[in-house]
């Protein structure tokens, strides 16, 4: 035996990689992209996993039922010890961490709350929230910190309105949600675990309160139908609501802040939007594609899968890089340039397959309204430092800036 390792094992760089610029690929991605559409990387614990970089291969694998999202599967790979520790301490998170049929049952319960008519009806409320936050920012005056004064409170107020969480309680979640999904400081595992436990306990109590005094949010509908019919118990319902609440905060707030940075650093593209606001929905898709903030989605192979000339063996870990799939030159011309006029619709920034983001249409409406309101109301908005000088989130959580100082 000259070499027991297959050739693709000879170079498996450490993963995930750190972005220097918050909206650009990490330096090592160029090489990974060339080695794709399927290559290998090494995780923090020394384990090698497959990395999917090609758009077509990714779009074939995401819906493949042989690829599991079950975080309790013994072979499930984790990007950081913090995430592994979080998962060991409790049951699988609903929706995102389970496979069908459990996933389908949970998803069916909540999709009515995120339907397009429901989202359309929320638009005036989203606009009011955005206008109110800008009013307050202008009142306090320049400089400001955009993440805490705009990008986070906007989706926070919106998801609370949708779920029926009392508006006055929402301050409680802003910080805790951030700890759950994006914390990257010292003692982060403990901080994230504690924050999630507190949110879960709050929702458990809120559900009990709402059983006595119903309101008019999605939680109230779930209590009136699913809970009353016995298709879900208190614990599972509280878990589902916690997941929706946290996800609704953190993802969109990162996109609003990072999208603002991206637009301000591409003044020609921002000028196009200012001149023609009908370009905005397409620009939101392009921002999603270009920044790919939920870059790495983890899976484990439940069975052998033959794909792109390789065999993914049962038990192998698979990392799906949405950023590399969204920057695949076979899917987009000049993929590393930011172009609000391109047709970016086939991106996988919301994922693909049964786990594709349930709040995607709510998020689209929030982003459109957030950018339109911000750039209309504060036309002189600027960031006083270069984007590669901004503090960034850790590479294994949602990508984005940890702070965003702005002036006008």
């Amino acid at each position, binding site marked *: 035996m000259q070499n027991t390792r297959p050739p693709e094992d000879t170079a498996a760089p450490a993963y995930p990689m750190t972005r220097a610029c918050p909206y650009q690929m990490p330096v090592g991605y160029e090489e990974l992209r060339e080695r794709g559409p399927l290559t290998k990387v090494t995780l923090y614990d020394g384990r090698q996993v497959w990395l999917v970089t090609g758009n077509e291969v990714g779009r074939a694998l995401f*819906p493949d039922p042989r690829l599991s999202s079950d975080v309790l599967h013994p072979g499930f790979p984790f990007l950081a010890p913090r995430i592994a520790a979080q998962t060991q301490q409790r049951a699988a998170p609903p929706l995102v961490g389970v496979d069908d049929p459990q996933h389908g049952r949970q998803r069916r319960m909540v999709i*009515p709350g995120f339907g397009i*008519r429901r989202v359309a009806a929320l638009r005036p409320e989203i606009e009011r929230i955005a206008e109110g936050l800008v009013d307050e920012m202008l009142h306090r005056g320049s400089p400001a910190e955009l993440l805490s004064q705009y990008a986070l409170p906007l989706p926070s107020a919106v998801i609370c309105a949708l779920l029926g969480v009392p508006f006055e309680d929402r301050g409680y979640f802003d910080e805790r949600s951030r700890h759950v999904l994006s914390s990257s400081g010292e003692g982060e595992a403990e901080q994230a675990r504690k924050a999630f436990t507190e949110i879960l306990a709050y929702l458990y109590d809120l559900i009990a309160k709402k059983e006595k005094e119903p309101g008019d949010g999605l939680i109230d509908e779930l209590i009136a139908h699913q809970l009353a019919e016995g298709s879900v118990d208190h614990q599972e319902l509280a878990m589902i609501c916690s997941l929706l609440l946290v996800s609704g905060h953190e993802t969109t707030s990162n996109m609003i802040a990072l999208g603002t940075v991206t637009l301000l650093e591409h003044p020609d593209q921002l000028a196009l939007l200012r001149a023609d606001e009908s370009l905005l929905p397409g620009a939101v898709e392009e921002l999603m594609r270009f920044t790919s903030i939920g870059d790495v989605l983890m899976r484990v192979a439940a069975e052998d899968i033959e794909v792109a000339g390789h065999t993914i063996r049962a038990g192998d870990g698979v990392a799906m890089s949405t950023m590399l799939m969204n920057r695949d030159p076979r899917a987009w011309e000049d993929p590393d340039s930011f172009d609000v006029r391109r047709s970016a619709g086939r991106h996988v920034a919301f994922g693909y397959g049964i786990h594709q983001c*349930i709040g995607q249409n709510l998020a689209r409406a929030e982003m459109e309204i957030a950018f339109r309101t911000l750039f209309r109301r504060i036309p002189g908005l600027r960031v006083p430092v270069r984007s590669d000088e901004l503090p960034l989130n850790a590479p294994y959580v949602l990508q984005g800036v940890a702070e965003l100082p702005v002036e006008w």
Partner: protein
Amino acid sequence: MGVSVATDRCIGAALCAMTAPEVFTQDDDGVGQLLPGGSERAGDPSVKEAARACPVQAIILHG
């Protein structure tokens, strides 16, 4: 040429209704459905694009 929605597979992403709003909509449960007369427009390019966009291949083109 015909088109149908495999409602048992639908996850409510609404990409069909966004891509081809003259053919698809969502019912009150957030599940994709054909609009009246929608199947007659099965040959429209937007319907093909909707079928491609659907994350769970729930838009079925026949014939």
